[in-house]
């Protein structure tokens, strides 16, 4: 019975499906982009030798358009839109990866971009590059969302009015003429620091053309004192980087080298490699941390001393003396010859420093002292000298040639502007109007220049204040190059045509130099030719290797072995002052980088706004962090009211400048010191950033860019509700994170089985014969709590991979955040000096999953490979599964988070439906975008598993070898984890990493007594305390022998450390 149905002619239009990417928005901007992105005619493909990057027709046939034009009530007519011409490389529906790099101020990150039909959808680390080895971090993951940020939609504007590209061309000409006439004296350029050799090359050319032009760089979080100190100690043109993989004793003084400001992937990887204690006898590094606020590094510390930042000098001088005492040497004598004799800060036990110094000395070249790169130069110089004295230069501390050439400081540029000599100010990237030192009064300064231009990938406060706002490109849209932290040369290649007309920094510079509009990678190729030094016949091959692998092989400079110039340092030490006495009316302020929005550049990124701060679990806000004693003495408090953190709002005054901000009581924070996270309060940046947090830059001056004294906090009597994802931060005596010291581990490697309820599990627990899971693979995951730093990169990676929606502050406050993996943070030990542990929790894929049996419609069941799978299209949303999940990893779509604006969720059908078109482009087409009313959860990245299984079958064809080769399949969280704390694989493969780790005695299941048999297990955390340190906690195991009673053995110290632990526990 065949019926021929004739559809009326209709244009494809209509409605958005559940997972629909397939809809052309009829907005002019978007259409304009489509035209540029997918040039219609065939001719253009031929002209461009780089056709593969002239990317694809978005609607490559996999994305059909659904229309509502119904014919005969049967189905909406849909259209298949094939490529007119098939682009090279591309198979519709198949993903491709390209190497690229994300520029960073301290070293670019080598990355791979996964693209799908021409859309980059996910960033991964470049596994070939030693700095990444496949890992990535939060900012790399989040940068993909920045690419598609609708707030980037902008035009060339002059004085706020849209202008044509021709006007802009004319303006460039005018600037050139003007600069030529003054030899550049009228031209100033203020740039951010992307560490791009091509930009550096163009800068030099520019300075050749216009010798009197000013080139200043400004990075609010990289004032360059580390470089200053390094050139002082090791001579000009040098810089240092730590090599933590060689370090067995590490002392960090106010240096969060596991965090995102100070550290990079190599640091975390290096540190973790020394932390991986698998069996008794394995060596374990030891970390001493001295810091004012609890940092990620502090959570990994074996010994943590909380100390005001201003007391670091006194501490370091005493440390130097103790090192000298333990290992007397002439150079140390000379180093300390002029050092002031400062009293030790209150509460610091000299024995602590003595024992620490002795430990460092005992490990000689394998010890390492690190200090924050924004601390005063003398301290940094002192620390470099001490490392030299310990013999660690070349092993744990590498000195390498400096990657940048010095340029002017923003302060000297400001002076020039004030003098009136600058006619044209070109600002490349950055946002000085927002983040320049408050004492410069930059907004006024900038407006005093007759002509200001700002090139920025996202329009910000500076763009608004500039005469010309020039759309810039995202790094995924343009050619470029960069240097990694180790100095290796990286390629940045575009993955997509600029979504909104944009120009890259190097393109603009080259036009300023009078060169024609550059085509493709010409500028980078020129730099590459210089750097690679290949003969002409091999350059083509070298270039293609460079682009394919993402970096120039062997471009890492060899570390230099240089002796420290201690006498140069000795003179500086007299500048070290002791910390003023603790005074609640004159506090120490620390301007910290925000781990969520960095210096503010990610403030309009929904993923990062919703990303819980690893320590405070705060989202969508920043807050002044203070210790509980400080709060008490100032009469400030945090309350949990109806599950919401209600924080007192204070007025913070520093040198006459004032901001208002909520306070959050941070366990382990040094007393009478407050931390002010930067980067928030940017209402100008876009709808996401609007209303989030306060702007701490308004208190920060050029001299106090890290630490300032004399801050005053005044109660305003007002409060602010803050969205935290974890209100309760103590374990309540439960055996969730299991810890042991190294001696305890060596005494009983299986200590995890003697802890808590696990000590009482009867044998033979199961009531039923279990149906066999007879899959070819049996998936499992192990998380090593010893190496997990709690950085939350897994959270962002998962967000990007699995199309996790952003729900907004209001929903987070209600407890409706959607993250499939979260990192639980608990504080243990004494309330004053707590320790901290972190525990990533994703769906455990329990073999006996309690969620499954309660689902009435079989929407969540087990598959034959041990996965707890979730069929979204079957789910009716009873939420019973979430109630019955002991780990609370299931997330529910309370609203249509993917379809409705997060500020109009309660409007229901009255709110406009649909997602921003560009945001849709980011979605992973292999993962269903969930609709309202369905439950969702981690599936061990089942889309990757299925892809790998399909690939294995396609490869197998008529053979029977369908196994996925070991190591070829990684979950998103595992792939991102720089600490390699997450291991995923097949249990049936006995030699797989996951099988081996599961067999370790320290492997345990969370809540094992429930007999849910999780497939995600943990390796107990092994700490390496030094028993000689006064007050050291050496016993972590609270065993439950069967002979003991229960109640009194839950002896984990009752802790009130968390400010959020109020409520129900009298």
């Amino acid at each position, binding site marked *: 019975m065949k019926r021929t149905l004739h559809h009326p002619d209709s244009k494809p239009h209509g409605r958005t499906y559940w997972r629909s990417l397939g809809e052309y928005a009829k907005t002019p901007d978007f259409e304009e982009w489509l035209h540029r992105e997918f040039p219609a005619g065939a001719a253009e493909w031929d002209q461009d030798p780089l056709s593969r990057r002239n990317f694809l027709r978005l609607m490559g046939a996999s994305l059909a358009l659904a229309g509502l034009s119904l014919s005969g009530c049967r189905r909406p007519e849909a259209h298949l839109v094939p490529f007119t011409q098939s682009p090279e490389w591309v198979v519709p529906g198949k993903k491709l990866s390209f190497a690229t790099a994300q520029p960073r101020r301290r070293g670019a990150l080598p990355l791979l971009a996964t693209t799908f039909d021409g859309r980059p959808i996910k960033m991964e680390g470049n596994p070939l590059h030693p700095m990444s080895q496949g890992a990535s971090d939060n900012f790399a993951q989040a940068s993909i969302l920045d690419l598609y940020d609708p707030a980037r939609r902008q035009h060339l504007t002059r004085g706020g009015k849209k202008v044509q590209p021709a006007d802009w061309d004319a303006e460039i000409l005018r600037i050139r003429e003007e600069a030529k006439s003054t030899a550049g004296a009228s031209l100033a350029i203020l740039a951010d620091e992307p560490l791009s050799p091509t930009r550096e090359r163009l800068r030099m050319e520019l300075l050749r053309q216009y010798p009197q032009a000013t080139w200043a760089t400004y990075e609010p979080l990289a004032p360059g004192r580390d470089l200053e100190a390094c050139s002082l100690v090791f001579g000009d043109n040098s810089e240092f980087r730590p090599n933590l993989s060689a370090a067995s004793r590490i002392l960090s003084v106010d240096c969060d080298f596991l965090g995102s400001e100070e550290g990079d992937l190599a640091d975390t990887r290096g540190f973790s490699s020394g932390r991986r204690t698998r069996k008794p006898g394995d060596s374990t590094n030891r970390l001493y941390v001295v810091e004012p606020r609890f940092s990620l590094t502090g959570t990994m510390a074996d010994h943590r001393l909380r100390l005001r930042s201003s007391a670091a000098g006194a501490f370091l001088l005493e440390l130097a003396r103790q090192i000298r005492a333990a290992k007397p040497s002439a150079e140390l004598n000379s180093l300390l010859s002029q050092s002031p004799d400062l009293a030790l800060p209150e509460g610091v036990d000299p024995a602590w420093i003595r024992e620490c110094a002795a430990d460092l000395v005992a490990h000689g070249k394998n010890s390492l002292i690190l200090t924050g790169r924004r601390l005063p130069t003398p301290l940094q110089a002192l620390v470099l000298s001490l490392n030299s004295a310990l013999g660690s230069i070349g092993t744990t501390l590498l000195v390498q040639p400096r990657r940048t050439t010095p340029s002017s400081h923003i302060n000297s540029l400001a002076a020039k502007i004030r003098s009136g000599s600058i006619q044209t100010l070109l600002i490349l990237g950055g946002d000085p109007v927002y983040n320049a030192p408050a004492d410069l009064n930059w907004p006024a300064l900038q407006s005093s220049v007759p002509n200001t231009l700002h090139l920025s990938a996202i329009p910000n406060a500076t763009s608004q204040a500039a005469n010309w706002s020039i759309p810039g490109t995202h790094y995924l849209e343009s050619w470029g190059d960069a240097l990694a932290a180790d100095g290796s040369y990286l390629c940045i290649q575009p993955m997509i045509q600029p979504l909104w007309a944009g120009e890259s920094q190097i393109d603009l510079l080259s036009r300023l130099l009078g060169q024609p509009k550059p085509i493709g990678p010409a500028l980078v190729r020129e730099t590459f030719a210089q750097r690679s030094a290949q003969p002409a016949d091999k350059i083509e091959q070298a270039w293609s290797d460079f682009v394919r692998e993402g970096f120039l092989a062997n471009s890492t400079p060899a570390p230099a072995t240089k002796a420290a110039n201690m006498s140069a340092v000795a003179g500086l030490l007299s500048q070290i002052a002791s910390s003023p006495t603790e005074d609640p009316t004159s506090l120490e302020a620390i301007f910290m980088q925000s781990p969520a929005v960095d210096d503010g550049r990610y403030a309009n990124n929904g993923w990062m706004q919703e990303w819980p701060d690893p320590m405070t679990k705060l989202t969508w806000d920043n807050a002044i962090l203070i210790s509980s004693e400080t709060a008490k003495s100032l009469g400030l408090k945090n309350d949990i009211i109806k599950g919401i953190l209600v924080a007192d709002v204070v007025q913070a005054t520093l040198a006459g400048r004032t901001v208002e901000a909520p306070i959050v009581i941070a366990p382990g924070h040094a007393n009478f010191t407050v931390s002010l996270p930067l980067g928030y309060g940017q209402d100008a940046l876009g709808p996401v950033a609007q209303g989030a947090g306060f702007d701490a830059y308004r208190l920060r001056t050029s001299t106090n860019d890290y630490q300032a004294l004399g801050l005053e906090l005044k109660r305003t009597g007002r409060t602010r509700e803050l969205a935290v994802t974890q209100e309760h931060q103590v374990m309540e005596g439960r055996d969730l994170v299991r810890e042991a010291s190294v001696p305890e581990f060596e005494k009983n490697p299986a200590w995890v089985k003697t802890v808590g309820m696990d000590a009482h599990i009867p044998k033979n627990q199961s009531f*039923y014969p279990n*149906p066999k899971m007879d899959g070819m693979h049996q998936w499992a995951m192990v998380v090593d709590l010893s190496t997990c730093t709690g950085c939350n990169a897994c959270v962002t990676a998962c967000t990007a991979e699995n199309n996790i929606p952003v729900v907004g502050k209001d929903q987070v406050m209600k407890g409706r955040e959607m993250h499939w993996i979260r990192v639980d943070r608990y504080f243990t030990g004494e309330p004053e000096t707590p320790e901290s542990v972190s525990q990533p929790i994703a769906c455990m894929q329990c073999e006996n999953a309690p969620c499954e049996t309660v689902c009435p419609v079989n929407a969540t*069941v*087990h598959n034959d490979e041990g996965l707890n799978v979730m069929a979204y299209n079957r789910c009716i949303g009873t939420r019973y599964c979430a109630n019955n999940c002991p780990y609370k990893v299931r997330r529910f779509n309370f609203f249509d988070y993917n379809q409705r604006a997060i500020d109009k969720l309660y409007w229901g059908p009255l709110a406009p439906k649909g997602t921003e078109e560009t945001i849709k482009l980011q979605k992973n087409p292999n993962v269903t975008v969930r609709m309202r009313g369905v439950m969702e959860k981690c599936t061990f990245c089942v889309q990757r598993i299925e892809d790998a299984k399909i690939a294995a079958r396609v490869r197998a064809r008529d053979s029977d070898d369908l196994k996925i080769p070991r190591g070829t399949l990684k979950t998103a969280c595992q792939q991102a984890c720089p600490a390699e704390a997450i291991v995923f694989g097949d249990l049936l493969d006995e030699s797989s990493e996951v099988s081996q780790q599961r067999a370790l005695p320290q492997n345990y299941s969370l809540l094992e007594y429930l007999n849910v048999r999780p497939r995600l297990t943990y390796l107990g955390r092994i700490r390496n305390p030094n028993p000689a340190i006064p007050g050291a906690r050496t016993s972590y195991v609270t065993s439950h022998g069967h002979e003991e009673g229960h109640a009194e053995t839950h002896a984990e110290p009752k802790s009130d450390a968390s400010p959020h632990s109020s409520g129900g526990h009298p």
Partner: protein
Amino acid sequence: MSRSSSSLFGLGAEFSSANALLGAAEKIHAKGFRKWDVYSPFPIHGMDHAMGFKRSRVSLFSLIGGCIGLATAFSLIYYTSALNYPLITQGKPYFALEPSFPIFFELTILITAFGTILGLLLLTLLPRLHHPVFNWDRFQRATDDGFFLVLEAQDPQFHSDSSRKLLEGIGGTHITEIFQDPEESPHPVRAEVST
């Protein structure tokens, strides 16, 4: 409404109390009448015996209903969970009695109830909205406080005069002939009621 002797339905008598009706019924039953009935506002204890009824068969329908319910529940669960699409949930067996019990029970009860109602309706031939006795104007007290006995004309022993005397003899008052409305078409099941 035309009334001929052919449309005579029966002869009705009213009694003063439940007790009187019971006595009358015993006597009519003893006389061997087949087609007759008593009407009362509530069930009278002992009347079934007086009228010589056997046990009601409703329970048989209930039993059949219960068996169907249980069988339905069992086959539904066994077929869907163990045969057609076995799925692993919480590592439990594809089919087991324990978790199936609640649905076994509920479906059994449900179909039993249906069987009972079906049995009741079939055995009483209800709903039957029209009935000759409703033509008797005193009869409306049958749902209030009246006690009635009706001898039907179709009974072989029925005879207008002797039956009237019989009814008078056993204490019936207001003895009235009840006529049938003319029939538009035969009753779908049976023209008259008799059990």
